[in-house]
């Protein structure tokens, strides 16, 4: 069977079983096993077990339970709630103020984590209830968390950028530097979108009625609420930048900060800690089982000859250097709907990079486009991992349909950002050029 037909069947059956309501992890795992059986035989299932072992041994993923636990503690002890109360008092008069505040927290979180997943789950826990309580439209709130939660891989440190650098041979430092301005661009575009949208449709992100905006003394008293979160952030970022910890170990500093905050709030109680630990276990396990199956799925797809498919596709592309770059972006966009980012990189980059370089494009610039595209992939239906991570923390009553629907404008914004960076490559290349 040709790889084209296999691809259609492979992704078709994923979609089919997913729609029937089987959890994502079992769909990915089950379809991998069935296809491996028909293409490679029974013994190849060993690969599935082996991929799971490999995922268990990935040190960078250790940050997930720690960051999730940090968020759980900050939420359960009331620290997060007070932070949102403060934001509401100060920015409540501004339509969309809380959404913008959430995006700022997301950007700070992104500077602390190098992986996706942790930020989405953490922000879903902290920010979503606060926005919903204050009358925000659910799609607006979900979309903001989905998009901001994904910035972790664009704003350094970023495990995906390191992987890109390793696969393509470019400089890690340059990749990190190149990600900063596009990150700012994305943030500006998203904030502008929220301001415009909530001006046109005030019910989506309502302002606080003037009577509830609080007096100045109240506002200043509420400011105390930022001290602890800022302390936590300083502990994490400070220990990364100051050379005290690796990004993964920094997650433990975050937990330490959260525990200190709990003590300050006189909430350092076993009942709260135990409950936070159990919710952390459930969410981390949910993420990890998706990753287990996703890695097995990528390996199965590669064993069937995914790279041949990409090579074949590239030969069909007409239309000059820019046509080729855009075609690559489209291929990545579609792959990202169904595959995990690491798998996409392994499948496409070895085919793409020689072409990109021979066309005379800057691999760093291409890498930024690629990473933003991955970020889009994290939140495009049906398989965007962030969508599922978020589903794991939303209150009952919010369905996958809400989550799927929430991402559309934000995906459009990111596509716009890619287009802008294509037209003005300096946005990505200026900063690394300055340093290296």
């Amino acid at each position: 069977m040709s790889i084209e037909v296999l691809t259609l069947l492979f992704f078709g059956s994923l979609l089919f079983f997913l729609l029937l309501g089987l959890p994502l992890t079992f769909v990915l795992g089950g379809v991998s096993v069935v296809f491996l059986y028909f293409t490679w035989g029974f013994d190849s299932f060993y690969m599935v077990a082996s991929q799971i072992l490999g995922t268990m041994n990935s040190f960078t993923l250790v940050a997930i339970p720690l960051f999730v636990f940090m968020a759980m503690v900050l939420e359960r002890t009331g620290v997060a709630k007070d932070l949102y109360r403060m934001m509401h008092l100060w920015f409540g008069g501004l339509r969309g103020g809380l959404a913008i505040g959430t995006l700022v927290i997301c950007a700070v979180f992104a500077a602390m984590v190098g992986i996706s997943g942790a930020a989405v789950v953490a922000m879903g826990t902290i920010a979503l209830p606060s926005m919903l309580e204050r009358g925000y439209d659910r799609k607006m709130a979900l979309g903001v968390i989905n998009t901001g939660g994904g910035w972790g891989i664009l704003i350094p440190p970023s495990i995906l950028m390191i992987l890109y650098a390793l696969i393509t041979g470019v400089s890690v430092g340059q990749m990190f530097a190149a990600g900063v301005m596009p990150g700012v661009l994305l943030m500006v575009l998203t904030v502008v979108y929220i301001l415009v949208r909530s001006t046109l449709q005030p019910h989506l992100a309502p302002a606080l009625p003037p009577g509830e905006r609080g007096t100045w003394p109240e506002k200043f008293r509420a400011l105390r609420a930022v001290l602890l979160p800022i302390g936590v952030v300083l502990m994490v970022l400070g220990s990364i930048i100051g050379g005290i910890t690796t990004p993964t170990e920094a997650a433990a500093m975050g937990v330490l900060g959260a525990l200190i905050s709990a003590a300050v709030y006189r909430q350092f109680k076993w009942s709260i800690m135990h409950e936070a630990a159990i919710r952390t276990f459930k969410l981390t396990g949910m993420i990890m089982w998706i990753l287990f199956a996703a890695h097995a799925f990528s390996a199965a797809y590669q064993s069937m000859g995914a790279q041949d498919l990409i090579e074949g596709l590239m030969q069909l592309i007409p239309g000059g250097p820019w046509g080729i770059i855009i075609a690559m972006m489209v291929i990545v966009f579609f792959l990202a709907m169904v595959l995990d980012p690491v798998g996409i990189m392994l499948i496409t980059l070895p085919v793409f990079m020689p072409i990109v370089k021979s066309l005379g494009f800057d691999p760093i610039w291409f890498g930024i486009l690629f990473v933003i595209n991955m970020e889009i992939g994290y939140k495009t239906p049906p398989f965007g991992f962030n969508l599922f991570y978020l589903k794991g923390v939303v209150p009952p009553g919010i369905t996958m349909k809400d989550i799927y629907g929430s991402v559309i404008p934000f995906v459009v914004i990111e596509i716009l950002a890619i287009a802008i960076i294509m037209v003005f490559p300096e946005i990505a290349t200026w900063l690394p050029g300055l340093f290296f």
Partner: protein
Amino acid sequence: PVAAQDTVTWKVQAHWPAASSSYTDSLKRLKRVLDERTDGQLQLKLYEAGALFSAKETFNAVSRGILEMGVISPGYAQDKMSLAGIASGLPFAFRNVWEVAYFHKNLGFEQMLRDEAAEHGVYWSTDKVFTTEMVVKKPINSWEDFTSLKIRSSGALQKFLTDAGASASYIPGSELYSALDSGIVDGAHWGAVQGAASMSLYEVAKYHVKPALNIAGTDVFLINQKALNKLPEDMQKIVKDTLNEQFWIRTNEYQFKERKTLATIQAEQGVKITKLPEDVQAKLTEAAKETWEEEGKRSEKAQKALNMLKDYLADLGYL
């Protein structure tokens, strides 16, 4: 056996990323040469690091016949191969690459490895011999400089460096750059010059340390014995001869590329070479001898290989 006109395709899982020089120079070369010499009847289907199996699982996958072929470092086969420790390089034993080549091919160490791998249904063939060298953020001028270092290391070398007095810790490759940059560690080894350059380490650590921590046959081809036996006899011979030839070509070529890369990074990134002072080298060699003895205790074969190695080092005038 395979009929004369059939085409055989082997899946090959490497432990190299597709961008690494060895993926092209070793793996794609082997694919091309085998294709030529078998008139297209033996095809290799290449998979880069981690695509199907992790490096640690590749030996098992080849042994089970799920993969016909794999490329690993001996260190990843420790559980199956008691000789793997010696194969992945005893610290401060050899001083030149040719000495290791001679040890493998002329003194019979390669055959010993091949015999042990055969117990697991695997045909073992070393791709090349090369050095493992450190990069550090500040020069090492004294024993105190060395012992105050925090070094990112792994496996046997981590133990050796710790025992020798430095502080060696393991940090995964994905965090190595950040760790060196921010000063969590002051030094690291990732292959030698090309390896460190591929990880961008010279951007954040400007001193390249000589001499090598070890020199060894650190890249190895594995073939499932049954898959090999299924080939017609002449084709089996082509595979074995090509691999043997590859060892010499690649060992030599790699040395050239190391030297060339070193010249480039010295010129373009201002990297300097720092040579370990004589007394530091002497102390490290003393400490290394304990590590050697440990490896010998792994099995009778390992003891035999170690004795052979020590006799050889004595012949060379190093002991």
